[in-house]
């Protein structure tokens, strides 16, 4: 017979939920400031500073000072923009990294949902369903050896 300890399940589910909420807020700003409720006046979310097209002085960010564009490096006839190819590649990698973090956050969220569900499953009637779902998720999202 399965054994459930409600408090450890709930505690872990809450820790995960709090972390995934934070990630979601950073990556999916909604309304208000550019970064949701994140205090954009004091600092950018950590991942925003990872862009190469950045505000150098992000500690003093204002609404007008957001990002550079490739045009900021446009050379005159006696100049050259050496790292243009790097910027182009990097931008793709940076966006891919953001998506990978968002995906991982969503995957963690499913883990949290499952723990919550188990916390409510005192009679273990849902065991088979929960087991099947986690097995399916493991199979579809496991990157293998």
């Amino acid at each position, binding site marked *: 017979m*399965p*054994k*459930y*300890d409600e408090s450890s399940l709930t*505690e*872990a589910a809450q*820790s*995960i939920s709090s*972390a*995934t909420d*934070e*990630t979601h807020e950073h990556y999916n700003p909604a309304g208000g400031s550019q970064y949701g409720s994140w205090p954009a006046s004091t600092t950018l979310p*950590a*991942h925003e500073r*990872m862009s*190469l097209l950045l505000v*150098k002085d*992000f500690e003093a960010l204002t609404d007008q000072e957001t990002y550079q564009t490739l045009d900021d490096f446009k*050379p005159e*006839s*006696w*100049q*050259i923009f*050496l*790292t243009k190819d*790097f910027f182009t*590649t990097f931008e*793709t*990698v940076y966006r*891919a*990294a953001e998506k*990978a*973090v968002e*995906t*991982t*956050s*969503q*995957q*963690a969220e*499913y*883990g949290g949902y*499952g*723990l919550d*569900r*188990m916390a409510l499953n005192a009679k273990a009637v849902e*065991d088979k*369903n*929960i*087991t*099947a*779902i*986690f*097995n*399916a*998720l*493991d199979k*579809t*999202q*496991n*990157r293998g050896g």
Partner: protein
Amino acid sequence: MAETITLPGDLADLVKRWTSDGAMKFRWPTDDEINFKVSGDSWNDREVEVELNELNPEDAIKKVLQKNEGPAIDAFAKYWRDVPARNVTDLTRSFKRVSAALLAMNAALIAYKNAAIKNLSELKKYLDDNQKWAWLPWSDDGAIHKRAVAMIGVFDLADQANLANFRATMANSISAIKQEAKLYDDIVKRFTPDAAKTGDKLTDE
């Protein structure tokens, strides 16, 4: 924070003058090495690592595995280890490698710009000295110009070697970050609408 390395005015005039007629191949980079420093530091920032690691609250998960038993817990444990926990670990390591590639670009840009400034300063000194001969009555403008162009050729040759070194670092860094992108794409591609539909079944409704 360090200032962006810029070309001093007199050297900029020199480059403008000799590139305008095609005598000089060198071009001053508009790139800002600080972009690479700030971004490189951020990819290895403790705050980024903490934010990622919070997605895998190890102590709380450990307690769950110690205090609970059954097939659902076993399935959760396997999923957690194989998917989110593994992704967090891999992403944390990967971000450090991207950081190293960016900081290598920062160092290469600084080295290239500084070498260019040093070599341009030497070239300017030579050209200034060479130009002094123009004031002498027996000077030959054509010969003076020829000597200047020859010296610019020597400068360009040295610059080409420095530029090749810079480009080699850039090729390595691009290759390194492309390698990391494979991990990111691999994580994302598994999260299909069907996988999401399966995961959503875990919400209480």
